[in-house]
């Protein structure tokens, strides 16, 4: 990079109730290509965290390897970050979450990271309903190694070099629903209005929240014939709903058309207001969304919005009956049974 990001903050920048400005949620300057969809997603994460009034250091951001996995450096610089190994972020996030259930866990991954090398870990972290938000920045190609097709590239999608992909693309949302994800959404990096409330609701959800964000690669996969280009996604985007996330204790000020709006109460008391654009779809009905996704695939449409939500989700720590106090704060007193117990054990072994 040829220039350094200015550290100056305008004294009158708006602050959230915790006293943080939006800048406090930003990270270092992105080194991704100009126009990369990933940068818009990073910005949406910053907005969502700022607006949700989250303490930045109470978030742990984790990633694997790839362009997308670099982004945690570009948001939430006051949060600890962990750029782990390729496709293995879910396991690191699982261990971290078990160590301290009180932080918010935000995982960022890509289509190579989650749908290929990390396919196994992706599947299993979903099964366990780990309490985290998992965002895939999905561009259908391997950017860092110069544009090879990834496993989410659609069948027939044409690459920059002109060849059509001859393999079936993996639909991560359909897979996540199938494997038991308790919050599944799909969005587009070019649609911040839709993406920000989806991220907010994901962070508030008690369990595994998955957001697949189609995020065009401007350098290697934004050509005519690609099904992950800006133009293609704009043309084929079918929004199921528009959503509004109302955090707990916040007054509802917007007027809703109650015939079209479905309200879902989240675990922490926050409300999710869904403005349904498709009458036959119900976010708490798995069957309806699986059918809708299959139909969209046939029709070459990309369904966006909140796809599925299980508001009664039980997250991993509760499944395991783990104590409420973060395990990383326990001391000798709680952890070590002491010598007299040990002498009883010795006696039982004689």
């Amino acid at each position, binding site marked *: 990079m040829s220039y350094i990001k200015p550290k100056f903050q305008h004294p009158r920048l708006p602050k959230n109730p915790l006293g943080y400005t939006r800048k406090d949620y930003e990270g270092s300057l992105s080194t991704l290509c100009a126009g990369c969809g990933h940068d818009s997603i990073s910005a949406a994460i910053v907005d969502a965290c700022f607006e949700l009034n989250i*303490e930045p*250091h109470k978030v742990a951001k984790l990633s694997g390897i790839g362009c997308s996995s670099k982004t945690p450096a570009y948001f939430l610089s006051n949060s*600890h970050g962990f750029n782990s*190994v390729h496709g293995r972020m879910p*396991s690191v996030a*699982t*261990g971290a979450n078990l160590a301290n259930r009180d932080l918010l866990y935000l995982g960022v991954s890509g289509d190579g990271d989650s749908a290929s090398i990390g396919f*196994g870990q992706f599947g299993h972290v979903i099964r366990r309903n780990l309490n985290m938000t998992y965002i895939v920045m999905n561009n259908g190609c391997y950017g860092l190694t110069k544009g090879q097709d990834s496993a989410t590239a659609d069948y027939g999608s044409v690459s920059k070099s002109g060849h059509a992909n001859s393999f079936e693309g993996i639909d991560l949302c359909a897979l996540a629903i199938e494997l038991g994800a308790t919050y599944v959404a799909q969005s587009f990096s070019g649609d911040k209005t839709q993406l920000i409330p989806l991220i907010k609701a994901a962070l508030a959800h008690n369990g595994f929240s998955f957001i697949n964000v189609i995020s065009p690669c401007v350098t290697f996969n934004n050509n005519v014939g690609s099904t992950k280009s800006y133009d293609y996604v704009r043309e084929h985007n079918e929004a199921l709903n528009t959503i509004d996330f109302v955090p707990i204790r916040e007054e509802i000020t917007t007027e809703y058309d109650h015939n079209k709006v479905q309200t879902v109460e989240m675990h922490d008391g926050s409300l999710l207001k869904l403005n349904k654009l498709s009458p036959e779809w119900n976010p708490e009905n798995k069957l309806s969304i699986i059918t809708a996704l299959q139909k969209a695939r046939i029709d070459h449409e990309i369904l966006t919005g909140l796809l599925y939500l299980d508001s009664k989700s039980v997250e991993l720590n509760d499944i395991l009956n783990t104590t409420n106090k973060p*395990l990383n704060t326990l001391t000798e007193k709680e952890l070590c049974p002491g010598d007299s117990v040990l002498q009883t054990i010795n006696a039982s072994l*004689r």
Partner: protein
Amino acid sequence: MSSVNDFVVRFANVNGTGSASANYLFAKAVYRMGIPVSAKNIFPSNIQGLPTWYEVRVSEKGYLGRKAGIDLMVCVNPQSMKKDIASVKPGGYFLYDSTKKLHTSEYRSDIHFIEIPIMEICNREFTDPRQKQLFKNIVYVGALATLLDIEVDEIEKLFAEQFQGKEKLIAPNIKALNLGSDYIKENYKYPLEFRVERRDLVKDWIMIDGNSAAGLGAVYGGATVVSWYPITPSTSLVGAFESYANELRKDPVTGKNNFSIVQAEDELSAIGMAIGANWNGARSFTATSGPGVSLMNEFLGLAYYSEIPVVLVDVQRAGPSTGMPTRSQQSDLLLAAYASHGDTKHVLLFPSTPTECFEMMADAFDYAEQLQTPVIMMTDLDLGMNDHLTPPFHWDDARKYNRGKVLSAAQLDEVEKWGRYLDVDNDGIPYRTIPGTHPTKGSYFTRGSSHDEYAAYSEDSDTYVRIMDRLVKKLETAKTIIPKPDFYQSKNLSDIGVIFVGTTRYAAEETLDIMKENGKIIDAVRIKSFPIHDSIAEFIDQHKVVYVIEQNRDAQLRTLLINELEVNPKKLLKVLNYDGTPITADYILSHLNLQNSNN
């Protein structure tokens, strides 16, 4: 030739027929008579149907290693009968279920045959089909009690302990025991010329396997997050942690767990979870065997380079590849020492007894957090899965966990400019922070890519070299923290030395003892950790030749010595046992070429 408290009994059973608990009963009864005993389960990679053996060595002198040569074979498995008959020492005994008698051609003239129609007796005396099967095992224990002079009282006491709450099972067990015993009394001369006699030699020692001891050590050492993937022979280690934790680690008020255990989808994930938990400030470990360590290489490199503590147990089995999953070896030494690509090196611990498994497992968490690096405890199947007579466990209640250099919020406020990888104390160990500690200070980006002292990405050559050299310094500091070698003499007495690690100890110590009885003294040292302590280089220097005794084909410990200490390879002679069974003193004796000695 008569002998007291010095013989080997081998049981040949069919896997999955309940023989293990009967055989254990036999070994435990000998132990309860105050006589040192060691038991080895020699089992197949199979759940039911294949031959399995259990070997019990009784030793007045307290030798706990394996001994070749079977004095008494108890055979209730027709599948392996031929091989079992052949394996008995000349003059030894072959006890078998003669419901189906051997063909005349199958007898050996140089051994004695004890024939008991075990199945016939059980079919006659018991009605329940399951009892008919299970009590076959108790019948032969009864026969052995009479043949070897084992105190029946001790066996009956063991029944009472085993069937607490199920007392109605005691009477039929005693009946089966007496059936075996009476059959011998009526048909054979007893006791045999080798037998047991009560002693007071086991003192306060306990009987436990290394995996259980390590699982308990992890509870005491403060492990809270355990991730694992099933693999023989390490599975029972996590099983032990789980059962001890369920008993000892419940919150007294809520009844919730002060620990969490996750069965991972594979070993990659298991080590990833352990690393994630340690990164986030919890003590966490995983346990596996060689194939799992192969898979964990990538993550071990990440933990080494990004300096995250993690504890891993490698219960070694016979490789390469799937190898012999139920046989013992020390063949992962090189794999573990340098696991992962690039320049890496890891701290290894080599326990030799269950007591050391307990202690080193608890200490491993201190070492890992003090050094901010992976610590791998290297045991093996023999240590992990076989019951060993071992000194009792102790815990100092005043002990505090050493969490290493972790900055609190208050400390962060005092630090002017904190750098995650800054070597402030000149010992190669930087200060770390735990996520969530401070609103504006101490956050950083953990990465496996090259980084500077402030954890920022850097491909600058000087920066890279600085960090890599500091990691070398850190591993030098490690040598001052991890267990020092155990020298068997305060000053050298010979120009021959021997070096060994882990369970080779048992046979090696027996060898030293036998040689001493024959007027031959050689020097010995047991290495307890890696990187290897500098005193080992001195030991090698001070001796004309040094035998490196180990349980793998390629002399991996010898390679580590040559590589790490830059000693003359010609001085290091190999004694290698790698057939999958624990090494014996006889084997070592026959492979030491003592012509080299001036002693």
